[in-house]
Each structure stands twice: as structure tokens, then as C-alpha cells.
């Protein structure tokens, strides 16, 4: 046992660093009333309709981002793996670009290009939301790209496609019934990260939509004025994020099981 | 006196017995191969000699010293791994000199020794290359030089050729044998390839299920395998069901065969007779042991022609020399083959 002393110590230290703030936030959120533990902070959070609306908004944006990223990236990467290997470095580079542009820079770039004439996208709600969606897709691009790329690398794509074609499947069928089920687990990993990014994303939402619409700016605004509610919201957002991630994982597992059978 | 002695060596991983009982004495300068299928315990035994695995029971004695509890870095043993295991961050010279560097020898001595070793493996111009710039065969030669640089008392080779292409494998096999002879270093060689073991070894240890099945010189193992396992693992063998007639005769199908060695099994019992395909020949009157069957298949292998005969429901392989003056047997014709009584083995199990 003594031989494992150092590994255990480092892991304990890491776990402590990870859980102490979460634990402290939870305890803190219960101390709204002096001397006793209470759920008063949570009552106040739920009393504010903006909490629910902003969280719902960000959740919808997150799911939409995941969906759009998949639609954009899966066919592109499949084609790259199958036919256009020489183009891969270019696309790989593009997927790295978001790392190079900090979100603060990105959002002002968007406002400069799209918010003024001739495009003036931000004059309509739909235009603004669309621009925000594009921004979220850019932020999550590296993660989605990597997970889909890893998924495609792990399967024998060419054989799968040729086998499907020889059985008479069209491209739509191949994508939906063959490729996607086989890279589902990898795509799911990227989706979790994307989900977490969009829910917690402050910069784009703050400068495109102002303070109240999306979740993180709302949380930031509350945090400036109140003491205990932000802690309560942080706990709630952690729980909700985890809950949704688990639901996604469950749905993903379930469909995998029905299509690919038990493994 | 034996140089390296393994006494009652046993290794268990939890409830799994990897090596049940292993006894062997190796003389100084001897080349011994451990031969067997995967999972027979040959690599585990080698790793115990190296010191990577602790013995569950038994002793390993090297030059009169019990090294069973000595850590690997204090054993003065050299080892070559199947996957080369060259350090990717070091050049060829640094790899070869690693042991001397770690031992704190002076730079001049290291350089001189590295030079000698590079000459030994005939790669003097590769000093500054990195492992990823070398082919598999070159990497393995460097690994051999690295293992030999410290002048170890024993050299261990764990399937060193199995990751290489056939052509390179044959060349390197030859080279290993030459280097071993020149340096006179005591060597243990683990392999599952019987040809490799035959070509290289002074003695072969055939292993099966964690036990020693037979120890002997290559020709002993091949010509007089003691068990059915050894017989079938080393070379190809026809195994025929037979009944003992008397101490020197057995009934094989319709025919009565003579056996040179004395049969220990009781008269009337069922035994298995073995004969190698290359020792069966087209029948002549001088050959008392004969078999007649229908030709099922003829495969042309170059130097030999392998004929498959069906003899009363048993398949018998016959390797004939490819001789342009003879005609090759035709499928579905009958053929009679025979063998010398000295080539027939009656198997113990």
C-alpha cells in the first residue's frame, strides 16, 4: 500500500481541488438566513422568471449548436476521410482557428462585420440568434471536430461505405443508418463538451444579447447584486447540466442498443 | 558445473499458474531456446530470469549466486525485446551506450565500446540516427548491440524476430547465431517458431501448459519426440492409430509394421504411431512398412511435392522430393508408400 502513497496523494489533491468549491457553493447557498440552513436562496431564484427562461434559452441554443455542428461536420469529415485526404490539413487548420481567436475578439469581429450595413443581421431577433448560433458553433468546433474525427478514424469507414453501397444503400441511408450509429459514442463526447460550453458561455451572449436572455450573462448580473442566489444558481446549473448530460448519455446508449444490438 | 540453474521455478498470477514447475541447467556459452505455443509459460520464465517477475517458488542461480531476489538492474543480464524497445529520444549511439552511461563509465570508454558494438552489428555509419529513422531489422540489431554492450553474463532474447519480415528474419537469425558463437555468450532464446529454434539452438526446451515437455538437442527433439505434443509441435507428423502385436510390431490398418525400438505398451493395446511426411517414400521391396491409399491432393512446394493420401479414412501426408525424372502422382490414383522401421515412433501419450 505504501508504494501507492504518492499516486493516492496526487489524486486526492486533484479531487479535493475539484470538489471543495462545489461543496462550499452548496453549503453557502443554504446559508441565506443567518444561523440556520434554509432553501430561501432557492425560493428566490425560482421566484425570478428570468432564471427559467434564460436556462431554457441556453439549453435550446446548446442542442441547436450540437445538431448544426453534426450536420456540418459529419458529411464533411466523411468525405475528407474517404476521398479528399489531401484537403484534410486545410480543414484541420480551420478547426484549430477557434483556438486562436479568443471569444472576446470573435464577438467584436462579428459585430463589426455583421451588425452594421449592409448585412445588419442584429436588427432582427432571428438574425441575432442566428449569429449567436454561428458563434457557438465556432467555439465548439475544435471539440466536435476532434471527436467526430476520432470516431471516423476508429472505424473502417471505407469498408463500411463500400459494403453499404454494394447492398444498395444511398448516401442518406449510409449517413443515418451506418456512419452515425458507428461514431455515436465519439460524437456524444464532443456533444457533452459543447453543451457545457454553450450553457456557461458569457462573452458572445453578453455582447450580442445584453444581460438577461442567455443563462451566463443573467448569472453574472445576479452575482453583482446578490450574495446567496448566485451560489444557489450555480448549484442548480451544475445539477441541470449534469442531468441533461446524463439524459443525453442515456438516450445515446439506448438508441445505440436498438440499432447495433447489445454488445 | 552449470552456469545458469533454474530449480523448481514456479509462477502464479493469482489463481492462474503460468509456470508450474521448471528445472533446467544451462552450461556456460550454451544457446538454449524455449519453444512452445503462446501461453505455455516460456516468456514468463524468461522474464523471471530477467527479474521482471518475482518467483512464486524455486531458485535461479547464476554462476553459483542465487539471484532470485536480485532486482533486474543488479543482475548483469542483457535482454532483447520483441518490440525492440529502443529509447525513441536517443540516437543509436546513445541507446547502445545507455547501460555504460548509467553505470557512470568515462565518456572515452563508452565511445570506444559503442564503436565496437556498431562494428559488431555492421552499422558503423548509423551512430547519429534516431530509432524512428531505422527499419525494424536495423532497430533490432541496435537493440542486440545495446544488450551486449555491458558484456552481460547471460543474453535473453524474447521473440526478437517475430515482428520482422521473412527475408530480414532469416538474415538476422544467421547474424544472431554468428555473434553468439563469436562472443561465446550464454543465451536463452524464446520463440514459438520451431524452425528458428532448430536453426539456432544447442538445446531446445519444448514447453506446454507451464511445464517442460522435452529438453534436447534439435535433432533429438525432431527425430525422437517423447510426447504427441512435442511431435506435433515440432515439424509435421502423420499420426496413425495402431494396435500392438508384439515388442517390435504394430498393426496399422491392414498392414503390419515393424518398429526398431522396443514397444513398452502391452500387446493388444491401442497406440499412436508417428511418421514424418518426408520419411515416407514410394514403396520399394526393401521397405517393410507399407501403406496403400488414394491420392487426394497434390501440392507442389518447390523442392518437395506434398501428397495427401486417404488410407482407410485416415489422411496421411507424404513429402516426395521433386525429381524431374519421376512423374508426379495423379489425383484419384492409388499409391503405395513405405518407410524404414527406424523412422516409426510409438508415442507415449
Amino acid at each position, binding site marked *: 500500500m505504501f508504494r501507492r502513497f*504518492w499516486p493516492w496523494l496526487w489524486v486526492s489533491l486533484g479531487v479535493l481541488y475539484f470538489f471543495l468549491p462545489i461543496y462550499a457553493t452548496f453549503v*453557502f447557498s443554504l446559508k441565506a438566513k443567518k444561523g440556520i440552513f434554509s432553501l430561501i436562496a432557492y425560493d428566490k431564484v425560482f421566484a425570478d422568471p428570468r432564471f427559467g427562461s434564460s436556462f431554457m434559452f441556453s439549453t435550446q441554443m446548446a442542442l441547436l449548436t450540437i445538431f448544426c455542428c453534426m450536420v456540418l*461536420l459529419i458529411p464533411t469529415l466523411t468525405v475528407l476521410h474517404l476521398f479528399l485526404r489531401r484537403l484534410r490539413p486545410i480543414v484541420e487548420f480551420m478547426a484549430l482557428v477557434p483556438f486562436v481567436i479568443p471569444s472576446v475578439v470573435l464577438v*467584436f469581429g462579428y459585430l463589426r462585420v455583421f451588425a452594421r450595413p449592409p448585412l445588419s443581421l442584429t436588427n432582427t431577433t432571428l438574425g441575432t440568434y442566428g449569429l449567436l448560433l454561428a458563434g457557438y458553433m465556432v467555439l465548439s468546433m475544435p471539440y466536435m471536430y476532434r471527436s467526430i474525427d476520432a470516431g471516423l478514424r476508429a472505424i473502417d469507414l471505407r469498408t463500411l461505405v463500400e459494403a453499404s453501397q454494394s447492398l444498395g444503400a444511398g448516401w442518406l441511408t449510409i449517413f443515418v443508418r451506418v456512419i452515425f450509429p458507428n461514431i455515436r459514442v465519439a460524437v456524444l463526447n464532443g456533444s457533452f463538451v459543447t453543451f457545457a460550453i454553450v450553457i456557461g458561455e458569457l462573452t458572445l451572449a453578453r455582447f450580442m444579447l445584453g444581460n438577461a436572455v442567455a443563462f451566463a450573462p443573467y448569472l453574472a448580473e445576479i452575482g453583482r447584486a446578490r450574495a446567496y442566489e448566485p451560489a444557489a444558481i450555480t448549484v442548480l446549473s451544475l445539477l441541470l447540466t449534469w442531468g441533461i448530460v446524463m439524459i443525453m448519455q442515456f438516450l445515446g446508449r439506448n438508441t445505440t442498443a436498438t440499432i447495433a444490438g447489445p454488445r | 558445473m552449470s552456469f545458469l540453474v533454474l530449480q523448481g521455478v514456479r509462477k502464479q498470477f493469482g489463481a492462474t499458474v503460468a509456470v508450474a514447475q521448471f528445472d533446467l541447467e544451462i552450461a556456460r556459452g550454451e544457446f538454449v531456446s524455449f519453444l512452445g505455443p503462446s501461453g505455455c509459460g516460456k516468456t514468463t520464465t524468461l522474464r523471471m530470469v530477467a527479474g521482471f517477475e518475482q518467483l512464486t517458488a524455486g531458485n535461479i542461480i547464476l554462476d553459483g549466486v542465487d539471484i532470485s531476489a536480485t532486482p533486474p538492474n543488479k543482475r548483469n543480464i542483457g535482454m532483447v525485446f520483441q518490440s525492440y524497445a529502443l*529509447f525513441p529520444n536517443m540516437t543509436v549511439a546513445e541507446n547502445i551506450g545507455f547501460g555504460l552511461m*548509467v553505470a557512470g563509465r568515462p565518456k572515452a570508454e563508452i565511445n570506444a565500446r559503442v564503436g565496437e558494438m556498431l562494428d559488431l552489428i555492421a552499422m558503423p555509419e548509423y551512430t547519429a540516427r534516431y530509432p524512428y529513422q531505422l527499419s525494424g531489422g536495423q532497430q533490432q540489431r541496435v537493440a542486440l548491440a545495446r544488450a551486449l554492450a555491458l558484456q552481460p553474463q547471460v543474453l535473453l532474447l524474447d521473440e526478437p524476430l517475430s515482428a520482422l519480415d521473412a527475408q530480414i528474419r532469416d538474415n538476422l537469425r544467421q547474424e544472431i547465431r554468428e555473434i553468439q558463437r563469436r562472443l561465446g555468450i550464454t543465451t536463452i532464446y524464446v520463440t514459438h517458431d520451431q524452425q528458428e529454434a532448430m536453426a539456432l539452438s544447442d538445446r531446445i526446451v519444448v514447453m506446454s501448459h507451464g511445464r517442460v515437455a522435452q529438453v534436447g538437442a534439435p535433432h533429438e527433439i525432431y527425430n525422437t519426440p517423447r510426447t504427441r505434443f512435442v511431435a506435433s509441435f515440432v515439424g509435421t507428423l502423420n499420426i496413425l492409430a495402431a494396435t500392438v502385436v508384439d515388442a517390435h510390431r504394430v498393426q496399422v490398418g491392414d498392414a503390419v509394421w515393424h518398429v526398431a525400438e522396443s514397444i513398452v505398451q502391452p500387446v493388444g493395446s491401442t497406440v499412436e504411431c508417428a511418421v514424418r511426411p518426408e520419411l515416407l517414400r514410394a514403396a520399394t521391396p526393401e521397405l517393410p512398412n507399407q501403406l496403400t491409399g488414394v491420392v487426394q491432393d497434390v501440392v507442389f512446394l518447390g523442392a518437395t511435392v506434398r501428397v495427401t493420401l486417404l488410407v482407410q479414412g485416415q489422411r496421411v501426408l507424404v513429402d516426395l522430393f521433386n525429381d524431374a525424372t519421376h512423374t508426379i502422382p495423379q489425383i484419384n490414383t492409388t499409391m503405395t508408400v513405405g518407410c524404414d522401421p527406424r523412422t516409426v515412433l510409438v508415442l507415449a501419450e
Partner: protein
Amino acid sequence: MANGAAQTWWRQIEWRRVGVSLTVAPFLLFAVLFMILPAGSLLIESFRNAQGQWTLANFADMNDPMIIEAYAMSLRISITTAIIGAILGLLVAYAITVGGLPRGIRTAILTFSGVASNFAGVPLAFAFVATLGRTGIVTALLTQLGINLYKNGFNLYSYAGLVLVYVYFQFPLMVLVMTPALDGLRREWREASAILGANTAQYWRHVALPILMPAILAGMVLLFGNAFGAFATAYALTGGTFTMVTNVIAQEMSGDVLHNEALAYALATGMIVIMTITIGTYTLLQRRAERWLRA
């Protein structure tokens, strides 16, 4: 006749290639529209003044004590948290790979790391306020034990506090980057070095650490970039007043007190340059790490 047939065949191939290439078009269009164009527009604008004339004045304006301080602070905090995060992350990654801890611990740590490395921004800032803020749980606990953090110079809303918060998402990222690299250390290397007479310390010094070094450096560079571009955490914690490049850009772009868009573009260009160097270095190091670990 034969010539005509050959030409038709040739044409078919070309059409097919064009069709295949077109399937990549949506991605490239998206990339150009939403990545290259906005960044490029900022780059170009940084060379123009408010009247639209070409100038280098915006970069000259960067020679200002506050701007220099902002860059210095961003660099300082990024380098510090990259080093601390890398060391802590390396130790944890070591523990769950070579350290030989149970498989379940490894899976759990990797899952935590995946979550924690993305648990940045506003919620993280509030979690630390609740933990180490003036009335935070740990602050209160330590006060009871006789250690008053804030009287001893600690302040969550300062440099030291930011470092602590940043490390929270930095070290899990290092765990994620280093785990595959440590997995790539082959057992045979350790055994080969042992049989050649090296002890554990010599193995680490001469073999394992040099092999890991490109991956470690790549990880640190990634952590540096991760911290350098961060905005939300510091914004939520200090209300955007802390002098860091990202904060200053936001203030110059949209603030009431400071407002100089052209300068903001120059600042953004500076960031892009630094981040490009960072990611370029990272890619080079990563390539070397992969080559060694594959050999």
C-alpha cells in the same frame, strides 16, 4: 471513335471530383464567413484610424502604461497558471496511469477532468466566491482555525485569487492532455532501462521525462493559450475591472469610460498574433510527441 470514348470517360471523372469537392464547400463557406472574415476584418481595421485612413497609429497607441500592464498581466497569469496547472495535472495524470491506481479511479478522474476543464466562466467564479470570498465557507473555516486569509493579504478578487480560480480549469485540461502521453510510455522501455542497470530515478531522468517532454511542453502551451484567451471568469469575478487584455478590449469596444475601437482592434490583433504563435508551437510539439511515442 476511340478518342471520343476516352474523352467522355475523362469528363466523367472530372465531374465526380467536382461533385465530391462541393460537399466540403458548406464547411469552408462557414469557416470563411464566421472565422476568417471576422478575424480578418479586425486585422484590417487595426491598420486604419476612425476616419478609415491607413495608419500604424493604433499600434503606437499600444505603447501606453495601462495597455502594457494589461498584456503583462495576461502573460503573467497565463504563464503562472500554465506552470502550476501543468505540474498538478501531470502529477494526477501520473497517478492514474503509471501510478497503478484502480481502473475505476482513472475513469472517474478523467470524467471529472472533462467536466472541470469546461467548468469555467461565471458559475466557476461564483463557486470560488462561495468558497474563498470574504464570507466564503473555507474563509470562515480558516478564520475559526485562527487563520484570517484576508488580513494576511489574500484577496480572491486579485491576481492570487485569479490564479487559484484559473488553475481549477487548467489542471484538468493537463490531465486530459497528458494521460494518453503517459499511456504511450511502453513497459518495455522501463524494463530495458532496468536490465541495462538503470534505477527508477535514472529511468525517469534519462528515458521517461525526455520522451514525455514534447507532450508536457505542448500541454503547457495549450494551457497558456487557454488562460490567455479567457475572459468570462475574470469578468464575473472582478466585474471586468481587472487589467487584462481581454478586459481592456471589451472596455475599449463597448465601455463608457474608455472607448477607442481602433485601439481595441490593435489589441485584438496582438492577441491573435500571440495565440497563433502559441497554437503553432503546440502543433509542432504535439507532432514530435506523437512521432516519439509511435516509434
